[in-house]
């Protein structure tokens, strides 16, 4: 089977425009990665009626893991979906991170999967911290109140010396959240909002000089072969750490609620492009 890269934005754009279902006949021969599954699941949450809903339903038929991701949004917080080295977890409340709750166990299994598949312990620990921070961002910022998050799912997929994790919520999105801090009132679009939080450590907290979550992410992945994707509203930024001069690449994305991010990291091979590097979930 020829595995072709999966274009998440392209597919959603076609549905957004009331597009043809033709591409769906080819879905099963495409390489859909974890971030794609979660973004499609977010779209399914948003497009729950009308023609888009019917199209979205077909994703589930063609791609079982997308169906599992959609189901994960409806699952109780303590429920996890495990498929060997792939796991999904519906983000619940802050209490899920205490003691031996599912949130803690999810992180423990992620770190263990990394260590068992060739990731050095310090790097595995750093990635564990980064995933925890990204998940905590959902708790802190996605809902109308802190620690009352919007519907959200986190997941990881770990193979030998290769891993990806993704966190996707259906909440307020980065722009709306950032505008609650008057310091960033001049920002007018989602791409600039993403750039502000990622490049300038902007935070929605009025009394805080800067945010700490994303620096944790970039510190964990410093000088690694990694590709990071951040999507919110109609904005999208990607960061290719493998380039000699890593920079953020701006792009537009079909509008969708919430904030979705993914990290792909390979220990050895230098990824040529993001989509070529994404490993499929079958």
């Amino acid at each position, binding site marked *: 089977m020829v595995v072709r890269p999966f274009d998440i934005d392209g597919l959603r754009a076609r549905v957004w425009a009331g597009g043809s279902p033709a591409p769906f006949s080819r879905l099963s021969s495409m390489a859909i990665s974890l971030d794609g599954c979660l973004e499609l699941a977010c779209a399914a949450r948003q497009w729950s009626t009308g023609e888009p809903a019917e199209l979205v339903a077909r994703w589930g038929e063609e791609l079982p893991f997308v169906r599992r991701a959609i189901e994960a949004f409806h699952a109780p917080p303590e429920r996890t979906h495990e498929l060997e080295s792939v796991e999904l977890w519906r983000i619940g409340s*802050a*209490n899920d*991170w*205490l*003691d*031996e709750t599912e949130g*803690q166990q999810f*992180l423990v299994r992620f770190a263990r999967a990394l260590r068992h598949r060739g990731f050095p312990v310090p790097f595995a*620990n750093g990635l*564990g*911290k980064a995933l*925890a*921070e990204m*998940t*905590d961002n959902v*708790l*802190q910022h996605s809902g109308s109140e*802190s*620690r009352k998050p919007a519907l959200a799912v986190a997941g990881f997929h770990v193979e030998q010396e290769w891993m990806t994790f993704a966190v996707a919520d259906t909440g307020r999105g980065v722009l709306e959240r950032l505008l609650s801090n008057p310091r960033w009132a001049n920002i007018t679009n989602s791409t600039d909002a993403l750039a502000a939080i990622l490049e300038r450590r902007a935070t929605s907290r009025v*009394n805080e*000089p800067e945010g*700490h*979550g994303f*620096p*944790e992410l970039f510190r964990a992945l410093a000088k690694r072969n990694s590709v990071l994707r951040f999507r919110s509203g109609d904005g999208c930024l990607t960061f290719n750490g493998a380039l000699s001069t890593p920079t953020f690449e701006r792009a537009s994305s079909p509008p969708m609620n919430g904030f979705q991010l993914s990290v792909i990291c390979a220990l050895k091979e230098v990824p040529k492009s993001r989509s070529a590097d994404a490993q499929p979930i079958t």
Partner: protein
Amino acid sequence: MFVIQMKSGKESHLYGASIGELHREKILKQVGPVLEPGEAGEIVVLDFTGVESVTASYLKAALLWFVDAGTKAEDPLPAERLGSLIFPVVAHLTDEVRAELRELLQARDRCCIEARDFSAIGVISGILHGPLDPALEATVKVLSDYGAPVSAGELEKLGKDSRVRATGWNNRLAQLHRLKLVQRRQEYRQWMYRLVGLEVHRG
């Protein structure tokens, strides 16, 4: 003095602001009832025994919040008023937790004392983490050498630094109090200051 175990269950990794906020609320609930406005406040040892690693967001919410409490808003919220009376000290840090703490303190221009030896009564010895103005650092050393509550006037009389008068000492001590490195109590018409630890050295 209170000693709070930060590892309450089996979690050995404390990540994210949300857990930090939960732990902060636990500390306020436990210590709050004994706090009296106008008093010197309480030293609270955050004991990290069994905690392998933390993130900056966690430390910011569970520790640094107490350092900053009540200093920003003119009319602080009730929780911040209570927090302003808590003098946090950390203990039993792993190298990884200590490195994370130092990095955060450097980035936020704050200080914190790590207790090396403490009892139910107080912190006997500790090390200072985080950047500090040289004059304030020298004052910490003076207080550590003196080892007892002292006023600005007494420091002038002691002649520890002939260039500094009582007003100068008073300014330095007030700044150290704002940084939560010293406690103060009013006796008659003067403030008496003492370090949060009896003996404090640079870490």
